[in-house]
């Protein structure tokens, strides 16, 4: 089991991204960073200030940025390309498919402002299908870290991995869950709480909600196992199957459409020996403007909803 607690301390994953990127840039001269006129928001600008020779703003031309990243990678660079998730994946899908995933080039797409918690900007900016898009691509690793500590571990880990990676993080500050570094490994899921009545598997921003749900369920005498699944592809299928076998029920939680994300990946993993399952996510609709917490509440991305659905599932099965 991994040590994880929800504290009052919050930290933005974008800050963690830029600090980790700078540390990586110091160690490795092959690291090159690209952005598409959102360098202040994604915080890659900080890398650009420290390493102006290795930072290129490609302007508002995301597909081109992905192609340029591929060309740099084909010449031996480890390329980080950042912009908002909606532009990084939707706008650039074919460039990623043709020039990065198919030739399996060493490009790390680190997308910020993923999910509905983008808030006020509304549906045009709330990317809810990026995991589905990236997960469908052969050769692509897909990661959604839960907190700033983990994000700082994800950056060097994906730099070590030779091949394309997609990392999605949110806009909002997130509670710090992990006090210490060194846990993250590509392709591994983590049991944060042991339990035998039901398993809650969460990724990204939803892991904090799953941890809160654990405490609430506990009060109702329900023993939930909480799994944090930072890597959605390749999925830690062994851990999922073990949980299915041992707890007999699974709920997945993601700040993403229920189509093609973590929920579907988990369902696929247990398809041979299925157990009753509920996928929590955005139910095939676009988002809207509002405060992040209001939206998370309205679209059921909360600990309270996890509890509600868990009780439903236990009652029915």
């Amino acid at each position, binding site marked *: 089991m991994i040590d994880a607690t929800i504290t009052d301390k919050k930290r933005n994953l974008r800050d963690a991204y830029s600090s980790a990127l700078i540390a990586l840039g110091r160690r490795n001269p092959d690291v090159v960073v690209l952005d598409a006129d959102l360098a202040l928001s994604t915080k890659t600008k900080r890398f650009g200030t420290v390493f102006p020779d290795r930072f290129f703003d490609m302007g508002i*031309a995301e597909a*081109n940025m992905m*192609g340029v990243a*591929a060309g740099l990678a084909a*010449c031996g660079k480890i390329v980080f390309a950042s912009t908002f998730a909606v532009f990084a994946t939707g706008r650039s899908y*074919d460039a990623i498919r*043709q020039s990065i995933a198919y030739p399996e080039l060493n490009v790390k797409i680190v997308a910020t402002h993923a999910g509905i918690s983008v808030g006020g900007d509304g549906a045009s900016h709330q990317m809810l299908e990026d995991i589905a898009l990236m997960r469908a691509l052969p050769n692509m690793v897909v990661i959604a870290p839960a907190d700033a500590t983990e994000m700082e571990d994800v950056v060097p880990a994906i730099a070590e991995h030779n091949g394309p990676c997609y990392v999605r993080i949110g806009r909002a500050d997130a509670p710090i869950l992990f006090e210490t570094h060194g846990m993250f490994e590509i392709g591994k899921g983590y049991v944060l709480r042991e339990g035998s009545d039901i398993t809650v598997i969460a990724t990204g921003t939803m892991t904090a909600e799953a941890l809160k749900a654990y405490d609430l369920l506990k009060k109702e005498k329900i023993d939930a196992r909480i799994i944090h699944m930072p890597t959605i592809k390749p999925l830690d299928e062994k851990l999922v199957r073990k949980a299915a076998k041992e707890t007999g029920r699974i709920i997945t939680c993601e700040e993403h459409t229920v189509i093609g994300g973590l929920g579907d990946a988990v369902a696929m993993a247990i398809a041979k020996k299925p157990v009753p399952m509920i996928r929590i996510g955005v139910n095939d609709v676009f988002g809207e403007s509002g405060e992040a917490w209001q939206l998370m509440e309205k679209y059921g991305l909360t600990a309270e909803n996890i509890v509600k659905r868990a009780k439903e599932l236990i009652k029915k099965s």
Partner: protein
Amino acid sequence: MHDEKLIKEIKRKALEIRKWVIESVYRAGSGHPGGSLSVADILACLYFHEMRHNPKDPKWPDRDRLVLSKGHAAPALYAALALAGYFPVEELKNLRKIGHFLQGHPCMKKVPGVDMSTGSLGHGLSVAVGMALAGKLDKKDYRVFAILGDGEVQEGQIWEAANAASHYKLDNLIAILDRNKLQIDGPTEEIMHLEPLAWRWQAFGWDVIEIDGHDIEEILGTFHEIKLNEKPTIIIANTIKGKGVSFMEGTLSFHGKPPSEEQYIRAMSELEQVERELND
């Protein structure tokens, strides 16, 4: 001026490329002869004279790179690579065959000498920009060539890349535009106009050179005109789609269709006739 021996040698290579285009597409039963034939002379000049490369070391870090952005001309690229010695020419007979490495469109993971996987139009120039940028970062003197179709430059991403290339002063980047004036559905100017094409590239900050893309001497000479002046260069090569096979020249129908058996025999005998004349 280039000596006549060299010009003749390259003409021979271009002919061999053309013959292999017909042969491989005929055997495959599918593929794109028209745009492969229009770019054959350019590829011959690049792989048999202008480019710094080593078929024995396809990943040589200092090599000049070539991105065939109009990836459907793969038969011509494969022929040039095989003739240059990257893999046995006999392999060209296995184009598009299951289990063989010569994919319908260039795949850098499978084919030695292919610097970038392409096929979806409009991506290659961006990749070439990245390669040229890497060359600048590493202070290497290699050049990056990108071959574009004329219809292809209707893609918006081409212009994103064009803008980035001049912004980052990539004078190590050379685009060659195969101006055969045809795309699939018709002549480019009828489908979606490109003119004034040279002016558009100039407006994006590029040096523009216009040439006859089938005149070996002129193609070779052009590369001497390229300046290291902090500007990318585009060579607009006026060509004829299907060049070298009379009944394919200037036609739409052989964009993506293989010759029939009778057409294959006719095409080969036409090309062999030119080869005999060249050898006389």
